[in-house]
């Protein structure tokens, strides 16, 4: 516990552990209009995605590929699930049913 408490400020100083922005994501209508087809995000990088869609609900690292499963499931907003590859680029994008 103590080690983690010590490590966090160090990592934070390196800019690695800055928490996500607490600002709410863009309005649902804007999301719907701007990104009705999430497939358009394939090939782009995660920072590009978060710049448009805001903070994801959760990110699960994938052991098999070393990519991530990036999930947007904010209540009242469109739900998206993106998968990134090991190089950080989005390889699949879906709208949750």
């Amino acid at each position: 516990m103590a080690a983690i408490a010590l490590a966090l400020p160090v990592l934070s100083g390196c800019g690695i552990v800055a928490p996500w922005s607490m600002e709410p994501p863009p309005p649902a209508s804007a999301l719907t209009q701007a990104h009705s087809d999430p497939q358009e995000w394939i090939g782009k990088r995660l920072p590009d995605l978060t710049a448009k869609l805001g903070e994801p609900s959760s990110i699960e690292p994938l052991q098999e590929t070393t990519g991530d499963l990036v999930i947007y499931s904010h209540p009242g907003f469109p739900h998206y699930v993106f998968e990134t590859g090991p190089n950080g680029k989005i390889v699949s994008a879906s709208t949750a049913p």
Partner: protein
Amino acid sequence: MTFIGMNNRTRGKRLAGGTLLLALAALATTLFYATSPLFAQATSGSAEPALSGAASGSLTLWTDPKTGEVFTRPGRGRVPLILNTGGGASAQHAVEEQLQEQKAQTAKLAQQLDQQQKQTAAVTKQVQEVTPAWQDYLASYKNKVSIGTQVWFGYSLFSHTGWGPQYLTQQIWPGPGNDGYNDFFLHRGYLNFFFYPTEDWTVRVTPNIYTMQGSTANQAFGGNAGIPNTNVGNLGYRIKYAYLQYNTPFKNLGIDAIKTDKIIIGVQPQPITAWEEDLYGYRFVNLTTWNMSEASTYPGLSVQGPITFGKDNLQYIDYNIGVFDNASFHAFEGTNTKEVQGRVSIYPFGARWRFQGLGITSYYAFGYGNNTPDQAQLSTPFKGPNSEIERLAEIVHYDAENWGIAFEYDWGRNAWSPGNMFSGSGPAALYGLTPNAAFIPKSVAINQAAYANLADALLNNGRSYQRGYNFFGHYHLPQTRYTLFGWIEQWNANTQVKNNPFDFERVVLGVAYQWNEYLRFALDTQNTLFYHSQYNMPVSYAKQFNWSAPKGFTGTSIPDVVTSDTHMFMLNAEFVF
């Protein structure tokens, strides 16, 4: 020569004597000087013979239409007779043509010069803008290489220590009687190197930093000195993944359903563990069930990928089938056989992403104990580690954006060894060691040895069958960074044994907190519960499994064969970049 202006009536008539001669003389003179520009300035009606029109190559005389006579001067009743002299016009025309050609050539040269100037300007611009080769190489290389890391770090506090399987790879703790034991430790440190030379190929190399465990023997160093063993507890460095991935082997078949399937050769994940870890999502907290008895990575060859259909390109099948060594990534291969493993996941309603919706997954593996052929052929009452090994899992799972749940049934044959049973902590006798007599009376130590022999008899006899039930899942609390997760397992170590004392339940419950895209924490409790009531196992029953009594053991039953539970709290951290 053509007489221009002579009508039909005068054609053929002869000019009168002297007049004709005079006209011809004038004509000859005209022809002789035809090229002189002076004639071009003469005008008709002048006092001189009217040779007007010479500039245009014509000679004008006058004729009396009534008599047919030709005159050099105009007069009454005479009409102009225009003769075409020709030669001067041709020369003029030639000169004009030459002039025109010269003009055309000049224009062409001017055009070429202009074009040359433009090309020179373009080349100059290119030279100015040319990128050094090393910059171009680095810019291209940057897109073909990626480097990442994955680190799992944790703090664990054991409120009750017992013997049992590890919760995480390389996690160990002292046995019963050490309540309150706690430690910080690094479970895993990966360095992920990826190289994508073309879209068809991917190369991955992942060294793994791990906690070393091994022989504790000290070594002689010189004739009269020795050095202590320093392996145990050190962080070692070994290859976890090293493979070549062919991304588009089926692309040219023209079958869209399998166009993204791939072939992998090298040290790679076997079909179930990494896949299930991703389904669960909290591998940095605890092991999945089959990963407690088989490594996650093997050298081999596999074909894998999704099968997709329909206009939405939904995934209906996901498979991974391969042939691997019987030895895992951290052992020598000893056999002359190979292991076959396969997993098929079916999504009857189609999956929009990796695990979305209802899925039914089957996994099967058939292989052998990792022994050399000569040893494997030895005739023994119980083949033990030389035997065939089978593993099967049937998993029904449902996954949504915010939650996932799964039920897993496991069946195995010779798939749970004493080493698996006590990978976290086990009786000293199981590892050929003698307990410290200062803490354990000799009689207790003998009973412990009898217990260790029982583990070997019941779990390593070549006739053991395993069965497991698992229930696991997670739920993300909306509008928070918290996710609840859990894994509950019942494990029957050998279903051939009545009231098998090695049967246990494993309970993992926790909450995870996502700091950002790189960092997650989890606070959890993990427990191993040997759920059978305590009892003494008759020696007669144990001997049915080829149990042998340790030296000094004289009892008719093995006492207290159900070992104590283990309870532990853990704070986990996962850093992925």
